[in-house]
């Protein structure tokens, strides 16, 4: 589905990604883990075309996509739900969702809208409300719902659990699992190790712009490296 090979990128003169390689296969959830500032978000920004890659290759469904514009990447079905949600606060919830189908999935918009509302009943309740007035968890659901409206072939979820209460975090992960049930591959970028590992098949753990650990989650979970790496005890 997605192959990243030896990707380098950064901001200005500062290199953040120092040669990252990872891959996602059809239908699986892959977790990309690591603490703050290791470059997780930089990867998703490069994938969605917000940030140019310095070198390395990105292939999505077999085609190279590095250097394409964000809208061209959306057209190909790679949808990024960003960290910090970036929903449209001045638009109603329903409008936010409708805009999710701005370039893709327009013919099925009504049907998809209904589906998203089913998955996130809270959004139905608030469909007329301005998105800026939603709570953090609701905004996160909206951001994911907006991504779903584009009928993604691959969904990147960037820190979906951030800032949510523990109860909501559980709910969120349950939802992510549900999204995947229909075969949608998901790249889950998270700091929440355990819960991410529980729903992901494989995981990559980043440290300082590089992949430090990778493998099936069942293996990683018991790797003593994990805790050390993650808590910064290394």
């Amino acid at each position, binding site marked *: 589905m997605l192959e990243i090979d030896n990707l380098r990128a950064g901001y*200005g*003169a*500062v290199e*953040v990604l120092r040669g990252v390689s990872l891959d996602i296969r059809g239908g699986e959830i892959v977790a990309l883990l690591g*603490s*703050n*500032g*290791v470059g997780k978000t930089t990867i998703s920004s490069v994938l969605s075309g917000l940030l140019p890659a310095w070198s390395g290759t990105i292939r999505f469904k077999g085609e190279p996509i590095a250097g394409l514009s964000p809208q061209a990447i959306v057209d190909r079905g790679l949808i990024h739900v960003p960290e910090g949600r970036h929903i449209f606060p001045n638009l109603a919830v329903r409008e936010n969702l409708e805009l999710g189908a701005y370039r893709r999935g327009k013919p099925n918009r009504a049907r998809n809208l209904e589906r998203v509302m089913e998955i996130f009943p809270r959004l139905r309740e608030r469909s007329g409300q301005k998105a800026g007035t939603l*709570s*953090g968890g609701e905004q996160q659901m909206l951001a994911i719902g907006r991504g779903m409206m584009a009928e993604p072939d691959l969904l990147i979820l960037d820190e979906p659990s*951030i*800032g949510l*209460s*523990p109860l909501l*975090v*559980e709910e969120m992960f349950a939802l992510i699992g549900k999204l995947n049930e229909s075969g949608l591959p998901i790249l889950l970028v998270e*700091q*929440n*190790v*355990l*819960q991410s590992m529980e729903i992901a098949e494989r995981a990559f753990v980043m*440290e*300082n*712009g590089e992949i430090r650990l990778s493998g099936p989650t069942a293996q990683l*979970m*018991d790797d003593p490296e994990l*805790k050390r790496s*993650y*808590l*910064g*005890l*290394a």
Partner: protein
Amino acid sequence: MSETAQSDTMLRVEGVSKSFGGLQASKDISMSVPRGKITSLIGPNGAGKTTLFALITGFHKPDAGKVSFFGEDITGMAPQDIALRGMIRTFQIVQPFAGQSVRENIAVGAHLHIRSRDAALAKAEEVARKVGLGDRLDMDAAALTVAGRKRLEVARALATDPKLILFDEVLAGLNPSEIRDVIPVIRAIRDEGVTILLIEHVMQAVMSLSEHTWVLNQGELIAQGPPAEVVGDPLVIEAYLGKGMAERIARQRMTAGGAHA
């Protein structure tokens, strides 16, 4: 925290609360920062650490509670006035004065107590050397790497001749060798008599640097004590790694222990 004598308390936070809109960012937080030590404030993302810093240093005004510095009530005082009293904060997302050189950036801090431009620039140079920026004095600050920016942030604060520095994630985004380089710098600052309160994500640093730590989650203080003890606290582990992790780790430990036995 073991009760420190009143006279040893440099900064005292009593029952401070703050909410933004409907979100309660700080809930009734109390803590006392002792003089001459490195202490730390930890917690997962979104726990309200930076908000607490902002409340202490005057960038936000608390809804309730009191902040005092050297016994003086500084609640609601403007940041620059608090800085003038010797308490300086740094920022998590370092924003250098872009377009100005490293030397000029640091000199802004030095000017807090030094009027003369030449003296301030000299002081900037001295501080820059201390934090390891001596070779980049004339570089445009915007061109610094993340690590360089962090050092710059430290240097700017240090140049003000502070009594207390509140470091907001100075180690985040640094690689292990960079962290190893910066830690002695922070220690050296403490050794010169400056009290330090850290916000940190990097546990290793917290454990090796600080003598006392407070753990914040969801705007509330959930634990405090020596870092080595605090990281074992199930509440803290759950806050960091998610629900269920504490249990799993305990199980791991037990099986490991069993195997050895």
